[in-house]
């Protein structure tokens, strides 16, 4: 009680409201236990929150690690309260003008800390962030400085869900405010389902105002397939694997010639682990959007350590598996739609005739679809089946369109728009419903974006993305005919669902949203690199504000349009372009001198 009184009295000078709230909180969350060294340590249930041997030493070691990453001008945001040993160590080790904030999800824990031991005057240098996750995110954003998150795991573990919500809120705020222009290199696959997604990603990044280098390996599809024409499998595999290595190297050459801020690979991008490791050595930042079912395509196991950031369409087991395989950052990023491509269409009568039906299904002939779709044929409705890989599906031959030819995106959109009830059955390898129905496929978002009504097999991640007023989910195969009967005559009900689902996509689920989310995630964890660009610190306006102390630089900066991102090389190039026949200013010479060292950079290839 004595420590509590003393510490709160001390703290009252700077944060009286917090002190009042602490008096009212109950405390008693942590069990205070003496450590071997003597200082109090703490346990939460049966887990130690600080070292059982020497919590101070442990905290100093933690703080040293944080200081390696913490850059001048950044606010260190500590996640994990505990008995504040780690915050104390950080506060005492950092420069006097450095700012440290601590997120306090539960005042009772802080009260325990205040009562456990005497705390020094350093506590008055800490900024205490309290409230709901959303309120805390707003407070952190108000610091107007880059945030460097310092997570003290043993204590942060107590409030993992709140920290997750806090970060989500911060990402949203950051995404909404992001104004800077990044240079993103998008590395696409040679072919396959992720190819159109790579294109949507490129469009979204362009829309967001970033500079995109699109490394499109689709142009190599012909060669890749030609190498697959050898009779012997080992020849095919060896040649195609070598070819993928060559493409991997060509990606590296491309990156060397025009280095981006971020390399964003889309699933199936031909980037080998060796190349990824080389890129990391050369300080390239890499991310992979793995728009695949991790249980079916398992090449992530070989690449997990190669990418700095993984974005996946599944959670839980997928996160664990990637982390076990060595991935350091794994984030959930569901699929989306591109409203420019996936849109409501006004069809001609002929198109209605060709593409329309009471019930349609578009997709490839996976085993579960071959088994289930025949059960949903009925004389009560017309049905059309579109897509390829349906050879041998005799029961469906009567509804299969265009002899099972692959249809392009435009035709696909026409089918969605012309169909009363679109069936959306996620593929899986079995013959029934997906036994692990977690991720939501692109088709769900595309149908919704078209303003098309859909019956979709239920997914564990679906409720977070669409409500049952937006899409109509089914859990059992035998329910589908009944649902078709329910919805087919209900034109208004279908329209209401379809319009609601389209609104939802436009509000939350476009590729633009996803890319904002992706970049904000990387930006939050890289406040001095991507974060600084996204915050617009490198835009002319931001730089001009920072150049207040160097007014001689303003004439140089004024030459760039407001809103344009400025890099060292841009400044130097501008000076060079205007150098002929005039005396250069001292600041120009200094910029050129720094740039002469920059130019001596990486021999990437």
């Amino acid at each position, binding site marked *: 009680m004595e420590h509590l009184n003393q510490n709160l009295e001390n703290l009252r000078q700077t944060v009286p409201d917090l002190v009042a709230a602490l008096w009212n909180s109950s405390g008693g969350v942590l069990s205070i236990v003496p450590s071997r060294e003597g200082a109090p340590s703490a346990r939460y249930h049966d887990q130690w929150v600080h070292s059982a041997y020497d919590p101070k030493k442990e905290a100093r070691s933690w703080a040293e690690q944080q200081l390696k990453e913490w850059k001048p001008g950044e606010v260190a945001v500590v996640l994990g309260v505990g008995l504040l040993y780690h915050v104390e160590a950080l506060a005492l080790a950092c420069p006097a003008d450095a700012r440290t904030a601590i997120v306090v999800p539960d005042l009772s824990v802080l009260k325990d800390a205040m009562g456990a031991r005497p705390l020094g005057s350093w506590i008055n240098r800490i900024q205490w962030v309290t409230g709901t996750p959303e309120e805390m995110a707003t407070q952190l954003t108000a610091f107007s400085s880059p945030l460097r998150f310092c997570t003290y795991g043993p204590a942060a573990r107590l409030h993992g869900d709140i920290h997750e919500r806090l970060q989500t809120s911060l990402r949203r705020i950051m995404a909404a405010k992001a104004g800077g222009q990044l240079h993103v290199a998008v590395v696409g696959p040679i072919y396959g389902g992720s190819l159109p997604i790579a294109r949507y990603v490129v469009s979204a990044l362009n829309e967001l105002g970033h500079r995109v280098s699109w490394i499109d390996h689709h142009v190599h599809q012909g060669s890749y397939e030609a190498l697959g024409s050898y009779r012997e499998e080992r020849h095919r595999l060896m040649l195609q694997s070598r070819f993928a290595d060559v493409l991997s190297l060509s990606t590296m050459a491309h990156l060397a010639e025009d280095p981006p801020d971020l390399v964003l690979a889309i699933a199936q991008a031909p980037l080998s682990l060796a190349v990824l490791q080389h890129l990391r050595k050369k300080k390239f930042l890499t991310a992979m959007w793995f728009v695949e079912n991790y249980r079916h395509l398992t090449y992530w196991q070989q690449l997990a350590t190669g990418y700095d950031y993984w974005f996946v369409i599944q959670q839980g087991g997928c996160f664990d598996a990637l982390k076990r395989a060595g991935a350091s950052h794994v984030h959930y990023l569901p699929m989306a739609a591109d409203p420019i491509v996936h849109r409501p269409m006004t069809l001609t009568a002929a198109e209605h005739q060709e593409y329309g039906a009471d019930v349609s299904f578009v997709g490839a002939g996976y085993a579960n679809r071959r088994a289930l779709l025949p059960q949903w044929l009925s004389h009560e409705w017309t049905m059309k089946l579109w897509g390829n890989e349906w050879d041998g599906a005799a029961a469906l031959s009567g509804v299969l369109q265009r002899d099972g030819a692959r249809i392009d995106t435009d035709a696909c959109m026409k089918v969605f728009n012309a169909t009363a009830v679109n069936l959306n059955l996620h593929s899986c390898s079995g013959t029934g419903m997906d036994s692990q129905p977690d991720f939501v496929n692109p088709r769900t978002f595309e149908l919704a974006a078209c303003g098309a009504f859909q019956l979709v097999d239920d997914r564990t991640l679906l409720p977070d993305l669409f409500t049952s007023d937006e899409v109509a989910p089914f859990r059992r195969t035998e329910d589908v005919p009944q649902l078709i009967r329910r919805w087919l005559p209900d034109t208004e009900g279908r329209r209401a669902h379809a319009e609601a689902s389209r609104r939802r996509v436009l509000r939350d689920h476009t590729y633009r949203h996803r890319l904002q989310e992706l970049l904000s995630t990387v930006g939050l964890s890289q406040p*001095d*690199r991507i974060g*600084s*660009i996204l915050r617009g*610190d*490198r835009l002319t306006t931001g*730089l001009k504000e*920072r*150049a207040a*102390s*160097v007014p001689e*630089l303003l004439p140089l900066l004024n030459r760039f349009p407001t809103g344009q991102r*400025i*890099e*060292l*090389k841009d*400044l130097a190039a501008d*000076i*060079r372009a205007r*150098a*002929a026949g*005039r*005396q*250069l200013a*001292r*600041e120009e*010479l*200094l*910029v*050129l*001198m*720094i*740039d*002469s*060292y*920059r130019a*001596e*950079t990486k021999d990437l290839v």
Partner: protein
Amino acid sequence: MTRRALLIQLARLGDLVQTIPVIMALKEAHADWILDLLCPGHLEDLGRILPGISTVGRWDGTVWNRRARQAEKEFRPEYVVEADTDIRAITQEPYDYAYVLNQHPRAILAGALLAQESIGAMTGRPLDPTLSPWGAYVRAVAKDRSENRIHLADAFCGMCGVSPPKHIMPIPMSSVQLPNDLDPIGQSCGPWIGVLVGAGDPERLVPAMAWTRLIAGCLEQLQGSRVLLLGSRQEQERASWILASLPSSLVGRVWDTTGRLSLTELAQALTRCQVVIGADTGPLHLAAAVGTKVIGWYFARARVHETGPYGQSHWIWQAEAVKREALHLKLEREDLRRMEFLDTLHVSPVQWPIEETIALLSDGSAASVDGWSLWTSHRDRWGAYYVEAGQAPVAPLQREHIWNELHPTAV
């Protein structure tokens, strides 16, 4: 009128040592001027003991590199402020003249930042420089690999608008001490032979086996001789290999100093030798600059007429290239791209002048070796030149002509 001038030499040790004649020439021409030196940080201590230099400015390439890496990630006005502070730490007031001996952009920019007028390899503004007549001459010689009778160090003088110095005095080393355990070096009688076991450029590395044979031969044939192994920390392994390869009876007469000496201590150790043998490396030039005779083995791209040690009575074994005439004839029938091969031409010897070097050391006799020619250095009013052993020391005539043609740039 007293002027302040800054000599900018941002290249390596060998280049700094080759700058000594121009320092002396500038002091002869402008005795009342204050002449400062700007050199890389690791050469700063050596710069301080060069005769004629008032103060030495330190150019910290590591700091500039780090700043550039940070600025590449995110350009901040603060980096320009820091850069300005670093430049002002060299001088608050601009020099009257900067003598810029390198053609590298950063040396040219340093000249523009630090002085009112830059003189040297380039003329004109920093971003549209043109080669000065002497700069063009040096570049033409390096590119064409043609006969060159003006030594690089003398060409530096030309660039700075002065004639080669009348007098060359060795770098005074009296103020530098060796570590106690190495102090006996050179104190006992008998010739002390310094061997530079390494080279910064891998293509200039003499095989360790060749050094072993040379050292063993010297120790066996030159009575009372001692050998000093000289080199950096990176060369310790080579030195250990050489020591391990020598007959055990000779090892006691070999002193291994690799990796143990600072640059000025190395210079002091070089003064303790009667002769120093090595490839075309900075320490070989340093040995000549402290007044020790040197024997150079020049191969790969090294050419005696361009970068032979400056001074008198040095010996250079020059590995001979394929006869150029023959090469030209062959290339005439091939496409022009092959001509580029000439630029990269370098010579890899198949044998080394080991016995012949020992003979030079024992009685000064100049024997011949297949694939090598032997040259000895001289100096006259037009600077240093080399004459093939056995020939009269007649200065090549074209030197005077070149000086008359190019020299007019005077300050």
